[in-house]
């Protein structure tokens, strides 16, 4: 659908990223509404604004990440707050129904969506809620959103951070930094699966590779192995477990370092390798299994990212995606893996708004289209 060329798009301003597991929604709440404007505001619009901004949870599974909201943000001549909301893709149909119930289509707004779900659910939006989606490429949105959020900063603080002394668990600390000169960067987006992009400028990038071992794999395996049901639960267990009871380390095989090849005794030789033995299977906890799953997936992503960085000759590796949400085990492990295996050549960078860039990019597209003559 071609976007209408109007001066400013009609409220509400949404950007949506419908992934394999999670839907990410950003909502711009204007704070500079004049009394006049408020009077003219239709009831349904008001109701949407109140519903979104006065709650932090929606239904059983929707969540607003209050700690991530960007305040006093100026967008397209308006000032307001950008809200970050997520809910499982499995709840998409309920969301669409809500759109119908709240008579969303009467607002004549444009709904910009990216992610695979923009395609998958397009006809549901149309038939159920009488809404036309503007489908946007997910990688374009990801990069644009990321660069934008980094440029506006996180309420006066940098959006980006890295870990100082990543190879030393005691001295490893999170340090804010700036992505002032971001290019070239290797962008590793860890959602249900993983995409690896080499980004040379805002509009010049290529998808280098991807892997199916991503956040979905971590959660899927954890559910099967431990009976847990949510990402939070899985991470909680992982934080308490010991993966060395599950994984076979170099020292378990060689008694120490494998010096011939410079492998440390503490390196994992075989993920889940101990689980080949029945005695070992009987002696581990669910927490150990969750931890091993997390470490396995994370290390593998680190290793692919590192190889891509070397092949593409890029030193800056930026990790994003919702797999990294509340997941310091993984972020620290990635920081360590980049640093250690590259002998300090590569640096892992992270962003506070991990999984929301696609949605932000979709919103930007809405605003940009409106600015065009």
């Amino acid at each position, binding site marked *: 659908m071609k976007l209408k060329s109007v001066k400013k798009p009609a409220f509400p301003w949404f950007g949506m990223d419908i992934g*394999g*597991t999670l839907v990410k929604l950003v909502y711009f709440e204007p704070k500079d509404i004049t009394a006049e404007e408020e009077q003219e505001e239709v009831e349904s619009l008001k109701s949407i604004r109140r519903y979104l901004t006065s709650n932090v949870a929606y239904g059983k599974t929707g969540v607003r990440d209050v700690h991530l909201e960007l305040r006093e943000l100026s967008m397209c001549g308006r000032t307001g707050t950008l809200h970050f909301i997520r809910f499982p893709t499995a709840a998409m149909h309920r969301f669409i129904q809500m759109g119908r119930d709240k008579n969303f289509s009467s607002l004549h707004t444009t709904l910009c969506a990216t*992610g*695979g*779900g923009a*395609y*998958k*659910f*397009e006809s549901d939006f149309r038939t159920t809620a009488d809404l036309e989606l503007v489908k946007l*490429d997910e*990688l374009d949105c990801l990069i644009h959103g990321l660069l934008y959020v980094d440029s506006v900063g996180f309420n006066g603080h940098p959006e980006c951070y890295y870990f100082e002394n990543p190879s030393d668990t005691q001295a490893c600390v999170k340090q804010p930094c700036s992505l002032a000169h971001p290019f070239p960067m290797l962008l590793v987006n860890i*959602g*249900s*699966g993983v995409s690896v992009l080499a980004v040379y400028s805002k509009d010049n990038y290529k*998808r280098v*590779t991807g*892997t*199916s*071992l*991503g*956040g*979905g*794999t971590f*959660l*899927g*395996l*954890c*559910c*099967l*192995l431990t009976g847990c*049901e949510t990402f939070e639960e899985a991470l909680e267990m992982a934080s308490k477990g010991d993966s060395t009871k599950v*994984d*076979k380390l*170099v020292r378990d*095989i*060689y008694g120490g370092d*494998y010096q*011939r*090849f410079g492998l440390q005794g503490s*390196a*994992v*030789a*075989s*993920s*889940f*390798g101990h*689980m*080949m033995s*029945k005695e070992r*299977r009987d002696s581990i906890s669910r927490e150990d*299994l969750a931890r091993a799953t997390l470490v*396995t997936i994370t*290390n*593998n992503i680190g*290793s*692919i990212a590192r*190889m*891509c960085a*070397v*092949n593409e000759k890029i030193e800056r590796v930026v990790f994003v995606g919702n797999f990294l949400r509340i997941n310091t085990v993984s972020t620290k492990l990635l920081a360590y893996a980049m640093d250690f295996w590259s002998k300090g050549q590569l640096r892992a960078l992270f962003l506070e708004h991990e999984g929301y860039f696609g949605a932000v990019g979709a919103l930007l597209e809405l605003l940009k289209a409106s600015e065009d003559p």
Partner: protein
Amino acid sequence: MATYVEAVRGSHSMDKSITLPPDEIFRNLENAKRFAIDIGGSLTKLAYYSTVQHKVAKVRSFDHAAKQESDGEPLYEISVQEEITARLHFIKFENTYIETCLDFIKDHLVNTETKVIKATGGGAYKFKDLIEKKLKLKVDKEDEMSCLIKGCNFVLKNIPHEVFVYAKHGDSEFRFQNTHPDIFPYLLVNIGSGVSIVKVEAEDRFERIGGSSIGGGTFWGLGALLTKTKRFDELLQLASRGQHTSVDMLVKDIYGGAYGCLGLTGDLIASSFGKSATAEKEFSKEDMAKSLLHMISNDIGQLACLYARLHNLSRVYFGGFFIRGHPVTMHTITYSINYFTKGEVQALFLRHEGYLGAIGAFLKGAEEDNPNQYCWGENYAGSSGLLSVSPELNPMQRERSGTFDMLEMDRLERQLVNLPLLQDSSSYIPDTVDLTEDTLAREYWLCCFEEALDGVVKRAIASQKDQPEAAERAEKFRQKYRDKLQTLRHQPFAYGSLTVRSLLDTREHCLNEFNFPDPYSKIKQKENDLALKSYQRVLKTLEELSWEQRQIALVRGLLAGNVFDWGAKAVSDVLESDPEFGFEKAKQQLQDNSGMDIILGVFPFVRELLSRGTEVVLASNSGPALNDVTNGELQILTERIAAMDPAIHLSEDRLTLVQSGSSSPCLDLSRLDKVLATVVRERGTDLVVIEGMGRAIHTNYYAALSCESLKLAVIKNSWLADRLGGKIFSVVFKYEVPSIIQGHH
């Protein structure tokens, strides 16, 4: 990462119930030395060097100066002598048999000065005490990875058709690759419990450039947790029955279809186990195992590709217990490599992958015997062949013979190299038809060799009339060769590409195995004798012809001689039934002219070349094969002809006799005697004449040489004649001028 896997069967209960047949399993232990052992998670591989005493037929010229020739006196004498050759033995068996095997070895090991046994593999330390106690040998541990690489180099250099690509849905599952003259550099991806990626640049130069902890141990360990299935083999069987799409999140599950602009198809896995993040559904063991297999194979394939690209390597071999004899894993790895490199890199597998560690450990212990200085050849009679113990492929055989798998390699007496005149040695394929791919041809030839077996047995017995036990040995030969044919019917790929040449060579190996070194020596002697008597008459006839007529007559002579082929059943039937079938009849079959095999066919031709000033290098087999002339016989014949014909005389710059290095009725131009190659190069050979059905039709029919060549043969097989669109006893006369290769200016 390391190949070591902890034995998972809780207790390693020793199975002592089996009895080992000494003729079949640990053979030639009497003179065995230089033991090496590689103990993995479930399989033990034992290696040793031994000598084999063989009967060989030798020819020796009578002292003709001392006595006048008389009728009935053969022109040379044949004697059967004992010859000692070196052989390498490799035996693979399950760890449960290790104690029985060690006892067996101890009991049969006599006259050995061996003091140490080289050991590698993760299990080496666990069984160290047992080995030392049983064998009274000191266990000397060797680094696993260096053994692996050493073994890999050895098989790549010495075993033709060692390497194959796997194509599950292809005409033949296994497509064997040419041995590349230069094996380096390559990447070896060893998938044990973890994965090691090793770059090998030279015999002793290699580096572990990377690896992954997600390997065979992950499949096994995680698989055991998810499916409560304990055994690796069973997990693979589960996986081969499963549907991964119920567990994995595919691109189409996210997009509703393909993600076109990135070229991601709908069926691509977006997130492994992505659908299992729910407590509401139960997943079947099969589906989870399949999903796990895909996840791990894809991941390894991806990493291998990233490393191959980074180091600019195109030859990537896969090994380790995850791969070993498992079509399922070979398929998923192949698929993954193909996907990630867009077809630019092929996943390569090795026939003897399971033996690499043992071979390497053995080589480390055998350095004083200089095994790397020699060329070695796979002995088809003593080797089990690919997948002989694969449970999924061959459950019957597994029941019958336990799980013993063998590889035997003979030390070749000669250094073998490429013919320098091959236009492109890396793309040269000796064999004309690959019977692994051509089902019709395969069925025909297997039947043909089976039918000919009676005749061969008879001939073998007849060649040793003076030995009463010859019949018994011949029967054993029959049994062995018939078993081989049977194996090849079910597993045509067992010894690499199945070809007429490999069928012939296997038969020669089996004959040798039962001490029938040269069943045709006496027939050859008689024929040579007869032919020699006609030599001058043939020459006289030829000399009376005009130049042009003579050229035609010479070629006919060459071809007529070629009819005398005991390998061709159509001919051997006639020859067996009609001992008087002579040269005159042969020429009638050709509806024309003159001469017998080498003496009446080749020598007049050679003589014509010599008389026009052409230098001639006459190459013949080093060892016996059917009734083909051997270099030893040819030496004597040439001397005898030279004595009656001044035009034939051996000299450095006129006529040279060289052995080909081959003992086969066929000819592999990439494995020729080094001396022959040197002579060819030094003398600037500009014409190659290849004669005979084995050498010019079954092999080398399509061989492209960098000089002019002449390939000629009589088709003595009606099926083949039909196939080539002619009649039996039709002639192939193929003169080829090399196509011009574009070179640098």
